[in-house]
């Protein structure tokens, strides 16, 4: 996954800040581990978390010091190469989707999510996107809801009533 070459080591924009944040986080976790049982004994519930978080503090400090030595990568900008708008927008879409999942229900929210994100990423005309997302929804619904029997939030769509009325048609 990583695009960096194994030989020429450079530092990506934001890497120092990220590594520094890791130190801050590790120290905080170390303090929290200390709060469990202090340094009371080697077999206390806090001993293992203390050791793990101490390792994190040490490892993050080494990593941070190493990034200080590295030269910045040339022609690499945070907004383009590390956190491009496309990633931010998709993250926002996922967030909205998760927020409305329970209230709107699986069917409506997932369909809306698929439609918007496929339209945004695939960029074909609206009808094509609509057809693709409908087809995908039908397949996902059949596989996971009907075959795998996964419980999914129902929301405002009266799924069970619809399903049972379809079943009664069958009889």
């Amino acid at each position, binding site marked *: 996954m990583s695009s960096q070459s194994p030989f020429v080591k450079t530092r990506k924009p934001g890497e120092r800040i990220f590594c520094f944040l890791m130190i801050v986080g590790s120290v905080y976790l170390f303090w929290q581990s200390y709060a469990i049982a202090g340094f009371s004994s080697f077999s206390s519930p806090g001993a293992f978390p203390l050791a793990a978080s101490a*390792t994190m503090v040490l490892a993050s400090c080494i990593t941070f010091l190493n990034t200080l030595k590295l030269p910045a990568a040339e022609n690499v900008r945070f907004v383009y190469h*590390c956190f491009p708008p496309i990633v931010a927008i998709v*993250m926002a879409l996922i967030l909205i989707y998760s927020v409305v999942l329970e209230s709107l229900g699986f069917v409506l929210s997932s369909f809306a999510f698929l439609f918007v994100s496929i339209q945004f990423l695939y960029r074909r005309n609206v009808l094509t996107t609509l057809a693709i997302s409908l087809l995908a929804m039908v397949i996902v619904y059949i596989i996971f809801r009907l075959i795998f029997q996964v419980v999914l939030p129902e929301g405002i769509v009266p799924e069970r009533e619809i399903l049972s009325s379809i079943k009664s048609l069958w009889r």
Partner: protein
Amino acid sequence: MDALHYFAMSWLSPELLGLTALGTFLGIYVGAIPGLSVTMAVSILISFTFAWDVNYALCLMVGVYMGGVYGGSRTAILLNIPGAPSAIATALDGYPLAKKGLAGEAIGLSTIMSVVGGFVGIVVLALAAPTVSEFAITFQPRDYMMLGILGIMLVGSLSGGSLARGIFAGALGLLIGTVGLDPMTAEERFTFGVVELWDGINPVAVMIGMFGISEALHQLHHMNKAVVKQKISRIIPKWSDIKKYMPLSLQTSFIGVIVGALPGTGGDIAALMAYDHAKRVTKNPEVPFGEGAKEGLIAPEAANNAAVGGAYIPMLTLGIPGDAVTAVFIGALFIHGLNPGPLLLIEQPHMFWFTVGNLTLANIFVLIFGLTGIKMFSKIVECPKGILIPLIFLLSIVGAYAINNAITDIWWMLAFGVFGYFMRLYGFPVGPVILGVILSSLTDENWRRAILSERGSISDLFINVFHSPLSTILFSVIVLILFTQSPIWTRWLKRKLFHETA
């Protein structure tokens, strides 16, 4: 006799047979489509199958694992894009073969050799696991603790990033695993007074976040990559070729099993080492390596499939995962109420033989699906990312929800997804995090058992390490990795492997 009965269980039941076939089929596609990984697929599958009978769930997941390791080779040959990390070495000679118009033959040969490798792995698993497990009963708690640490350290040091980053990731995973009520004293750890955290953070949510969401987010960087199409000729390889390359593929299969069985090293390392081995033993290749040598194609393919069987040895006998996929597998076994470890083979021998039978079956399906359906295959692999990626997000979110029907798990998954995105971006490996989460309770409990058995004295524990040969070996290996060899050794090994393979 019992063993045979359990071995044949998945062969005789139509449902289990069907699920294994389905899993293998899915696995081949998941492994082949760049951007979908086996780890991702298995973690999402856990959440959907945890309510099933354990046998059904295992059949599906074993199939996906076996198929996925093989599937990566196809896109490596056809598109020069390894579908999975274990297929990186396959692309080096596979793609040049395809460019010469021999794509079909290359796929056929790699299929046969993958299956050969797979069988070698399974045979070694069946023969070695009972012995290892008998030996494992004599392990002391301190040995388990050290094995756990060793596994995380190996994954951390070999998975690409620096050792410090790998260790950081592993320790983070261990810490995530401790959240909740302490299993020994029921004391709260990192719960911040929130009752919902008493049960800890669901490892499946962490897995789906780290492997599903963060990987898919990274794929957004490469949305517009052109796909080169290849013509596919005959697929069934020549018998003379199979006979000629069999000795080499058996050799590299054994490399694969051994590397796969070491905690922390998986198919990708096995494949690179096998490629290196093939280069050294092939004195006069018909075609130079890197330009379409068949030796360079079959060696990594046999090795990475053999590594599957190898990886099962520490997983089933010690409860210690060999790599990220087996870590996810152990998570799945726990969810189904099984306890992988030395007692698994004694208390539930049927589970072991069932798994062996299942792997064998999946391997046969690799052969069947591998030699058929290539036309359809090249259509599906060309599925545009603009459609694929939204679907991965959808499945990840639904999967996270399905574990406990709790929206909280979605939040955890998203948080780890975004965090994992930045970790990958800045060169922190995410594999050790998962390994850490899975190994956390094992390492924690064994550490405390070890120290309690020495009446709380750390110096006694330290001295007693040197009274047992096994503990001494484990301890020295850890020290060796940590202090002397690791930065120099991994740099040397990687440079050597990359230089010789590139």
